[in-house]
């Protein structure tokens, strides 16, 4: 049972607001690196949200998912940065 007044659940709401503000930059961003910076910030905040959700529901599996998500988002960032740089992937 999820307690909505758990401090980790309240912090999840604030983190969701942060993700929405960062998504504004992804939509508005004039150049492509701006959008990648916004997506990188969203990725980090989502990883932290998974940690907080795992602590709120006392389930360890969400924290394992956060580890895998961190590595996959890093690979995606490097891939898109290499594409922007104009090199061979």
């Amino acid at each position, binding site marked *: 049972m999820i307690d909505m007044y758990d401090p*980790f659940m309240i912090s999840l709401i604030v983190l969701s607001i*942060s993700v929405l503000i960062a998504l504004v930059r992804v939509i508005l961003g004039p150049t492509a*690196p701006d959008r990648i910076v916004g997506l990188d910030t969203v990725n980090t*905040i989502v990883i932290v949200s998974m940690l907080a959700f795992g*602590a709120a529901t006392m389930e360890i599996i969400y924290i394992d998912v956060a580890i895998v998500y961190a590595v996959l988002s890093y690979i995606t960032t490097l891939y898109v940065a*290499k594409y922007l740089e104009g090199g061979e992937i």
Partner: protein
Amino acid sequence: MIEWVIYIFLGIGLFFNLLASLGLLRFPDVYTRLHAGTKCTTFGAIFLAGAVIVYGAWRWYDGDTAMINMSIHAAVALVAILITNPTGAHAIARAAHRSGVMPSQAIVDDLSPGQPGAVEADTDEEVDDVE
């Protein structure tokens, strides 16, 4: 007593994550946005993962022996964030500079090839020489 440690850690982490997204919205060009969006989220992630680690250790100390796994896995996730976030930011800044995006109020670009003492920015020829 230990609850207040968790509350303070959560407060610091949430404050810096909010500052990161606000700075992403307000700063003028790519490099300053990268400064806000990467450093602040890394610092906030340290404190938020620290809150989860302290919470798991507290549950473990109270007798729920499975909760020490939550502390250990949160520490592994924190190490993954600490390794991948600055290197990803470095890759984005390098790609932005090489794809021709300039700082908005810059007068002198020390990394351009014409400047005295500049680093040789064009590595495609070096790669061709190696091959």
